[in-house]
């Protein structure tokens, strides 16, 4: 009997360990996630824009960060900057060109852990028909069960900068900034 209990304990420990070592798959929860950007306007202020329609999947294991996976797809037509005429311009052929490029995407390729809560994700951003590497600084805010819906969830904050000219978006360079700062807040729910 003692032998049997010991066996059960060992098997349980092994199973727990195996589970902890496997990445969990999450889907981005769009109701609690935000993808924003800021861009300098004539040196005076930074215009804020956001995309309201996006989706994505994350595969994350805190104990094996390099094995993580990430892909996000953003509908460019969901762009908003709180000024309709500007939105019209930005969605047009000179900027995001939503007719020819209805989606932009980010696929993580290199995940680096700095400490228990921070790291970097380098991935391929496809924007305007051009694919270039972009690195995001990421903070892992919380991984655990959501107390309201009891679903395992993970929350991340990411920041990064890209040059729009790298993606062939050179309209009004000089007057309108080249650097685009990204502000990304993601809450993702574990897939059942």
């Amino acid at each position: 009997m003692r032998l049997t209990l010991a066996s059960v304990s060992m098997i349980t420990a092994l199973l727990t360990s195996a589970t902890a070592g496997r990445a969990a798959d999450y889907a981005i929860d769009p109701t609690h996630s935000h993808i924003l950007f800021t861009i300098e306007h004539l040196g005076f202020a930074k215009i804020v824009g956001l995309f309201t329609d996006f989706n994505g999947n994350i595969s994350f294991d805190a104990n094996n960060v390099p094995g993580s996976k990430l892909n996000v797809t953003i509908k460019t037509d969901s762009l908003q900057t709180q000024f309709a005429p500007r939105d019209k311009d930005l969605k047009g052929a000179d900027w995001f060109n939503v007719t020819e490029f209805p989606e932009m995407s980010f696929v993580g390729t290199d995940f680096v852990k700095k400490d228990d809560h921070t790291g970097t994700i380098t991935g391929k951003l496809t924007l305007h028909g051009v694919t270039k590497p972009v690195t995001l600084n990421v903070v892992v805010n919380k991984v655990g069960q959501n107390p309201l819906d009891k679903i395992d969830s993970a929350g991340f904050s990411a920041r990064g900068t890209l040059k729009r000219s790298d993606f062939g978006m050179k309209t009004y360079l000089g007057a309108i900034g080249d650097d685009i700062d990204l502000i990304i807040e993601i809450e993702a729910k574990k897939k059942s």
Partner: protein
Amino acid sequence: MLENPIILAALISFVLGLVLSGLARVVPGSTIASAVLPIIFLASYVLTYQQVPDFPPIGATNKIFYIALAAALVGFALDLLPRTANYRKLLAAIMPLLIVGWIGFPRFAKLDIELTATALGLWLGGTALLWRLDTVATTSAERNGGSIVGTAVLMALMLAFAPVALLGGSSTSLMLCMAAVAGLAAVALWELILPRGAFGASAVFGVGGGLLAMIDTVTLITRQVDLSALALLLLIPYAGEIGARLLMPPKRFRGRVRQVLVGTLAALPILLVIAVLFLRHPESLS
């Protein structure tokens, strides 16, 4: 004032027009002088988009450059050859169709009645514009045509399209139009001082083709254009001729004086375009 990128681009284009068109006058004949016009358009494109786009171009705005370049080269070749009238008319009909097809290609997978009608309108409208520009280019100066009228018509078309583009979600097209108009104004100035008949097929198809590519991009890709205001552009190539027949008896107004007056009359529909835009989009222009 020079901090305004539109004014700066227009100034550079004007100076470029003065220099190139002036230098072209050293060469006898009109072929080289005519080629200066599409060069100005291409330079205006580079000033506006701050790049020579990669080839093959990705996206409609990048295609504009190569459409203007290819059309200018074909036009230049036609200028070098004798007896090309039929080829020019054929090109005036085919080129707008090719431009609509290439620019609008990403949308044609989901062809509906509205898109079909728009594409058809752009093709036929483009053909009417190029056909008329070619007629102006090949008509003798004494009969209202010639380089000054042709250049004035192109300038008027761009000045009229600029506000249509702005309200159609393309402030960049406005900048490109303004830069090109400034450069073309420099050519027109040279034509007044030292006429060379600088309005051959390279000008008709290079600048005309570039303009059509811009119009098709804003209409088919940005998709916010006011089609009523856009349709009024078709009046511009005819306004000068009709106005001249009504107001200026050939016996009293001859030669370059007549060309300048006809060119000025060609600009009148711009006011109509602006009036229509004001009436239909008061909130955008207030």
